[in-house]
């Protein structure tokens, strides 16, 4: 089925690519590419006990974004795009998130992790125009998420209020080229809980048509893979011509599986590590091919 897709050079010439001038699409593309490698490590100060205090600033906003060329979506966002910024820290750090709700209805931030009840972002709803500080210690290490937990939660997540919360182990993982990939879907007509498009990092086919990800042959690649899809029970990732080690939820440092296809439920995530032995272009995509053909398709461009 995938072989029917036009090759990249043809695709770029075709009408499938966005209209000639579309600043909103360009912004969405840039955001998707930036999300791949950009980590917000916060403003760091040393506490008396030697621990790091990391402060982050997050705003909830109503933002119109583009999710596929020409297709606009009335999103609710953390800091103006979907997904929100990847917040990165180390296990044991003291975390302080300054959250301001600049949107039109109550929102909250619910972090996956181990913390006190009043820091869970469920019962302390933040009305429009108000702020809330979330303070907790980062634990356990692993690949986590944060998202709005205002009801109806499925709508607040589907509209785009989520991001990655990455807690590194105290002993760092081996050096690798790191990438964040947030799988999601967009029900653009908002009326049937049926996603029109599927993306990685918010824009359909961005890593296939706009930015094939450059990779060095033999170099260790680490993908932080997160599933924030709503309305579909599962999402998945398949890499062509390589196999990866799987660290479920990133909470172990020894892999539990060696495969080329991984399926994640809603809110589930895993760290994948792999290398490419051969140069060339290699696809990666959801192995629910119906998702792949609605935007969840990318390629690595492996160079010697």
């Amino acid at each position, binding site marked *: 089925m995938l072989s029917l897709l036009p090759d990249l050079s043809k695709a770029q010439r*075709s009408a499938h690519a966005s209209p000639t001038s579309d600043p909103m699409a360009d912004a969405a593309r840039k955001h998707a590419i930036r999300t791949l490698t950009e980590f917000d490590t916060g403003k760091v100060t040393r506490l008396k006990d030697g621990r790091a205090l990391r402060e982050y600033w997050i705003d909830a906003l109503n933002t119109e974004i583009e999710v596929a060329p020409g297709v606009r979506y009335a999103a609710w966002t953390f800091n103006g795009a979907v997904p929100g910024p990847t917040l990165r820290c180390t296990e044991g750090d003291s975390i302080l998130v300054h959250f301001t709700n600049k949107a039109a209805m109550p929102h909250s931030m619910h972090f996956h992790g181990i913390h006190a009840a009043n820091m869970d972002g469920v019962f302390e709803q933040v009305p429009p125009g108000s702020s809330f500080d979330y303070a907790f210690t980062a634990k356990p290490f692993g690949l986590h998420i944060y998202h709005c937990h205002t009801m109806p939660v499925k709508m607040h997540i589907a509209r785009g209020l989520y991001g990655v919360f990455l807690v590194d182990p105290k002993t760092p993982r081996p050096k690798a080229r790191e990438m964040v990939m947030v799988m999601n879907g967009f029900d*653009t007509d908002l009326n049937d809980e049926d996603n029109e498009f599927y993306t990685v990092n918010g824009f359909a086919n961005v890593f296939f048509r706009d930015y094939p990800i450059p990779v060095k042959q033999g170099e260790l690649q680490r993908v932080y893979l997160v599933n924030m899809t709503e309305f579909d029970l599962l999402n998945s990732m398949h890499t062509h011509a390589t196999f990866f080690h799987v660290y479920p939820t990133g909470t172990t440092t020894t892999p539990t599986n060696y495969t080329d296809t991984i399926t994640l439920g809603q809110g589930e995530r895993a760290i994948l590590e792999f290398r490419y032995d051969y140069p060339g272009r290699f696809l990666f995509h959801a192995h629910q091919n119906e998702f792949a053909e609605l935007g969840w398709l990318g390629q690595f461009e492996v160079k010697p």
Partner: protein
Amino acid sequence: MTPPREGRPGDAGQAHAATRPSALRVVLSGIAPLVLVGLMVWWFLLFGINYVRLGPPPVEKLAIERVIFKPQEITLLVRNEGPGPLTVAQVLVNQAMWDFSITPGRELARLQSARISIPFDWIEGDPYNFDVITGTGIRHVRKVEVATGTPSVSPRALGIFGLLGVYVGVIPVFLGLLWLPFLRSMPRSWMDFWISLTVGLLAFLAIDTFREAFEVMGRVPEFLNGLMLVALGAIGAFLALTGIDGIMRRRGGSRPAGARGMGLALMIAIGIGLHNLGEGLAIGAAYTLGEVALGSFLILGFTLHNTTEGLAILSPLVQEKVSWRDLFLLGLVGGGPTIVGTWTGAFTYSDPLSLVFLGIGGGAILQVISVLVRARAESGESAIEALAKPRNIAGLLVGFILMYLTGLLVAG
């Protein structure tokens, strides 16, 4: 010019004649309301609209009016039938994003249409779903049950669809006409039965025509008001045929009585012909729109079904002298339009136009029914009283049931 006097009873006509207005005044009085309406529209668009523009932007509405299958390419004809402009953003074929080109462009003004070309290796006979997603993320859907190559006008295609029309329209009507000797061999007292049987057949056809029209109506953009297109055709046909009937009647008065039977038969043939035009349209279009696979069974079904139409034309002729030439003419008038229909339906199909034609067919048949019933009514009898005789009721029902049963053969 004097203003009209306060009229006294009795001199109104005179006063009117005395104050016939000048041509200028007629023109001005005709134009004044238009000018006022124009001013109002101008004011509203400039200022008034600000008072009523409330709420979010209107929902985009795009109709995929037609799907054309050519080798390795599918073309969608779309029209913006929403209240404002829209942008065509993405096209999905069977739930997969696909390359496309669009002319004249992605931006469509209200009621503007565009042509979306999709390079696609489609498979004959498969069902296809098309989704056009517009700028605000709305999905506009069209399903095709059976993909079939859209015929282009060529001698071969003309031949095939012409032959189709001959099979489902012309041949059966002529075959039905061959019952004339049989009808003549029956007792004269059966005349009423044959006529009421014809009314039963025609009633079935009329209902069937309007059913078809309602089906097509579902596909026609709302703003075109499909129901009124059908009504336009039906009322127009009914009135036109009533006029023709009147002319024939007046002429018939100075001719031998035999002309009346022939005139009536001709009216029935015209009504059935107009119905067959609609039926041909529907068959040609159903094939082109990929709704049916035209199997031999379907064609045979239509053939048998339509044989009864020949029977209907005959009933006024049972006691008349008719030449073979006249019979041939009647068959041609009743069956021939099917060919025009299949051609039009296959090559230049348009839903709104076919609604008008279906209305014409339905209205024509209703008019013929009214002529038939009135012709049978004895002096002082109402049409209902004429029909309510046992023999006529039997004829009506037999006609209707005959149509129903042969209609079962047209499955799909």
